[in-house]
């Protein structure tokens, strides 16, 4: 497989609270496990998925459609896990509970 190929997928923010600070932190930690360059896009504005400050600039509320792109040797795994995490509502219950168990 060509390492330069860039993978794209579209996801929707599911949780009621949207992409707030805690999910953004978890998303950065998840993305940082991969070598791939991962970007998140909203309305043609793309930001680095490994930067919490950048993710927060999206202000992605519940129902927002986000594009995910990944490029690099482990792009396929990266895009699978990132999109699954977003689609799972960032495992965000809206209550203060334990941290994302996989991390």
């Amino acid at each position, binding site marked *: 497989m060509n390492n330069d190929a860039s993978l794209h997928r579209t996801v929707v923010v599911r949780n*009621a609270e*949207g992409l707030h600070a805690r999910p953004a932190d978890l998303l*950065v930690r998840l993305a940082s496990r991969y070598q791939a360059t991962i970007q998140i896009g909203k309305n043609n*504005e793309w930001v680095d998925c490994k930067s*919490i400050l950048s993710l*927060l*600039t999206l202000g*992605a509320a*519940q129902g927002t459609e986000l594009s995910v792109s990944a490029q690099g040797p482990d792009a396929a795994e990266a895009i699978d896990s990132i999109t699954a995490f977003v689609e799972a509502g960032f495992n965000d219950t809206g209550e203060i509970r334990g941290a994302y168990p996989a991390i």
Partner: protein
Amino acid sequence: MKFADFITTKAIRAELKSQTKDAVIEELVQALLEAGEIDADQRDDIISSIMKREELGSTGIGRGVAVPHTKHPSVQKLVGTVGVSESGVDFDSLDGERVQLFFLLISPPERPGDHLRALENISRQLRDDTFCRFLKQSKTAVDIQQLLQEADDNQFVSG
């Protein structure tokens, strides 16, 4: 959303005295109390719920910035303030850096959208190095207020 929509001018604190995470949070909540934005009998509960949120993971999001926050049923609208620490405070930040800029937010439980838009505004402005640097150098609450006003007037970021 603009800073003017959620930052209480009277609660802005330049030259924070506190040297620890707990003390900074208490100092800023106290500032909101003195500005009349929160109820005196809710002060301790608000402080403890902000601390509980910090236990989940620091809100020190890097670049010397932290956004300690909580939802609280005692507020009717999003309220917030800004504090600047010249020496910086160890806040267990994600990037390990000491925190100089604090944006403390308290939001009503049923208004997640307002909280998100406040975070969006803060993070967009803080991406601008000039804004960040000027804010860290602010010596008075009036300086901070003027910077926030200039940011609201889009003098730092284009998009």
